[in-house]
């Protein structure tokens, strides 16, 4: 059996010094990625999913290049690229022209990433519908046991819980007000586990431009990028071990 973690104390040097995310597959389940955006630098694969009652499971899947309908997926991809410049980005577009069937399409997108064993999946979206509690819980467990890290933006401003960020097996992330893209905090009070930059950050957007924006949905891709970096140097790590490393190396744990 491989040694679980570092021989000595966990350090950032050990974790990701010199790492680039090379060889690590990172999926962005969102509104699509504008692959031509200068901050994105291309994607390795793209699939667009839409609700279609004619299909057996109600979801139509179209592989091949697509555009970002909103700009948000491109923003997430740009952040991940900045933190892990050589990772392989995969765009899984699940947000489309109408809301009908969103839960089913969202779940199908997540399943697509898990089946392909993409090591990191950025989920800057959620559902608060109780109907989907069980389905997403099952998918989150499958991901965890398959070594797939689900990085979820927490909708911690709403009164009701949202899924899948609520589950213990995922990396749930909220925004903190610092700008260092490699800085992150560990939050000892669940369900939010991690804090990362997400306030007044400049991100890529639709049409090759940028916007200055705030939201937990921009904090999650910072953590997704960091995990990709870590995995490019230490590909054997499981979600449990990655959480251990992030806990040990958090800004507030080291201070």
């Amino acid at each position: 059996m491989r040694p679980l973690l570092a021989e000595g104390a966990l350090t950032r040097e050990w974790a990701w010094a010199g790492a680039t995310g090379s060889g690590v597959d990172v999926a962005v389940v969102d509104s699509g990625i504008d692959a031509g955006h200068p901050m994105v630098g291309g994607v390795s694969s793209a699939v667009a999913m839409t609700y279609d009652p004619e299909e057996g499971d109600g979801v139509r899947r179209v592989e091949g290049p697509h555009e970002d309908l909103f700009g948000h997926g491109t923003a997430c991809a740009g952040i991940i690229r900045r933190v892990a410049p050589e990772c392989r980005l995969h765009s899984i577009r699940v947000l489309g022209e109408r809301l009908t069937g969103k839960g089913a399409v969202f779940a199908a997108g997540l399943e697509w990433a898990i089946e392909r064993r993409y090591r990191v999946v950025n989920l800057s979206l959620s559902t608060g519908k109780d109907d989907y509690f069980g389905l997403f819980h099952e998918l989150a467990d499958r991901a965890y046991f398959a070594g797939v890290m689900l990085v979820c933006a927490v909708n911690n401003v709403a009164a009701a819980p949202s899924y899948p960020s609520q589950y213990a097996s995922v990396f749930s992330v909220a925004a903190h007000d610092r700008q260092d893209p490699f800085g992150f905090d560990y939050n000892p009070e669940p369900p939010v586990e991690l804090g990362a930059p997400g306030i007044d950050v400049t991100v890529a957007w639709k049409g090759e431009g940028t916007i200055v924006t705030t939201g937990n949905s921009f904090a999650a891709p910072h953590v997704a990028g960091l995990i990709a970096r870590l995995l490019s140097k230490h590909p054997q790590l499981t979600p449990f071990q990655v959480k251990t490393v992030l806990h040990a190396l958090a800004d507030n744990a080291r201070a």
Partner: protein
Amino acid sequence: MSEPAGDVLRDLARLLTSMGPALAPEGSEALLQSITEAARELFGAQACSLALLTDDQSELVFTTASGAGASDVLDLRMPVGQGIAGWVVMSEQPISVSDLQRDARFASDVAQSTGYVPRTILAVPVTSPRRTLGVIEVLDRDITRAGAEHDMRLLSLFADQAALAIENARAFADLGRTVLGAVANAAPGTPLAAALSAAAEGAGGADRDLLRLSALLGELDRLGPAERRLTSSLVEALLSYVRGRGRRPS
């Protein structure tokens, strides 16, 4: 009017009377208006507006607005598949964007949804545990005032209030349909039942299982107190069993 139909009408009157407190649609609209006005005042903002999803979930319609551009934005429709408001509704994630005017393409996108071009926008989803309802937006709030860093959380509290008001209003509408259908079921074969059924069908949207349950409650009402007590115990036992099975979708 025939005797059975007269009974049905009496039942209907009794049911509607007992549902009186729910009959307040104007109150809901006034409440939503006051929510957008309170939010605008609290945030020192130029405008605050609420957009709700259409029944086919393909568009957002601005139903309530206060402040700058309010009259222009009311009843404005926009596809849910674009723009900041669309993304917020789709992803169920709040977002705030500053410096909107820097990018002309972006500004036109926002202007289309707001009636004027703001510098900043804060938008949070309006949702209930059962469904996504829409989005509430605040334009050009005063970010220099004390506590402005909590604006996203504050606006979400307003969104929760709006969601309650909207769901209450919709429950009233659904209840009306349920009542019509239930009364029709309670007096099968009468001309009035046919008319009520047609009305209930035309209204659409109500859950068929609920219609049936409602009809059963009508029958129960005509039985004695002992039967009603027995049924209550049975339903309570069933509910506690169903709750114990967890929350997986059926």
